[in-house]
């Protein structure tokens, strides 16, 4: 994957952090570390400086591979970044003989993702109903039913492990397209997915295994 050095993501503010934490879902799975929306909200509400500090940390994580790393001072160590990129791999039973692999990420990575999406200038198109559309899945189903009743053909296309096998190089090519290029999104992709990330599986009797993931993205 080619370098993304010529771009720069502007710093984050305490407001960016506040908005991102407020947008986090209370129902979302707990991160690999025990931070939750309520814990983060209390720590940034009690002292505004905490939000500014967190904004600085998130920006340093984001720009680790970019031109701002000199300005931001000493970058985080590779060990610290491995922790940010790490995830817990869980297999949820799917049918009788199949599993759906999901990854529980680090809370800093999740929070950074939300801050980046809020700041991002390129948004998903009106075709995508999972983001910024209330009960988007129901809307799609109701529209499809109406169109079916009006004589149209309805196609439902399933893809195999879409997130887990997504080719990072192909996603990178889309993220860096001139019309869609957003410095925050590009930096986030490079920081989170340029290196191989470690996924940990916890088994019976305290056994653990590490899976090195060089393709696929989290959702």
């Amino acid at each position: 994957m080619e370098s993304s050095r010529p771009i720069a993501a502007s710093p984050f503010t305490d407001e960016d952090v506040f908005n991102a934490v407020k947008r986090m879902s209370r129902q979302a799975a707990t991160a690999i570390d025990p931070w939750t929306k309520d814990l983060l909200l209390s720590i940034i509400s009690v002292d505004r400086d905490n939000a500014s500090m967190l904004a600085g940390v998130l920006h340093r994580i984001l720009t680790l591979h970019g031109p701002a790393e000199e300005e931001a001072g000493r970058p985080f160590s590779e060990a610290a970044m491995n922790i940010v990129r790490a995830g817990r791999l869980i297999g949820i039973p799917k049918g009788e003989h199949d599993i759906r692999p999901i990854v529980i990420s680090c809370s800093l990575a999740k929070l950074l993702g939300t801050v980046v999406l809020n700041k991002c200038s390129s948004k998903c198109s009106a075709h995508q109903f999972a983001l910024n559309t209330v009960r988007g899945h129901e809307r799609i189903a109701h529209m499809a039913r109406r169109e079916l009743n009006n004589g149209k053909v309805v196609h439902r296309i399933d893809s195999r492990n879409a997130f887990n096998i997504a080719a990072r190089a192909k996603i990178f090519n889309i993220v860096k397209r001139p019309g869609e290029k957003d410095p925050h999104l590009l930096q986030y992709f490079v920081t989170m997915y340029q290196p191989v990330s470690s996924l940990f599986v916890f088994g019976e009797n305290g056994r653990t295994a590490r899976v090195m993931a060089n393709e696929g993205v989290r959702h």
Partner: protein
Amino acid sequence: MDAFCIDLAKEFHAQHVDVRAYMDDCTITAPPAIAESVLAKALDLMRHYGFQPNLEKSAMTCKSPLSDHRPIVPFRPPTEEFVMLGVNITDNRCVAIEAREQLHRVDAGAG
């Protein structure tokens, strides 16, 4: 997935084709006359963007019989269940349930 949806919608612009996605779940509605070519193009584009369409788990349905139908994905008659995103779209009882829920919401709002 968004890039795929945009490209497919552009390809069939002004031909009454609707492309909708919920994360990686894709739903396309199209007039019967071009339904097969829309599906073929959609599968090509998906592969182009690195997705692996699962043809056995994909499906299509239509109220009227399709002429010259070459089944790329299984065809489900409208008398059978066609579940997408957790909702069976061939069961009109769902419409009744939806209308009843809407009435409840209106009642609750008025109260």
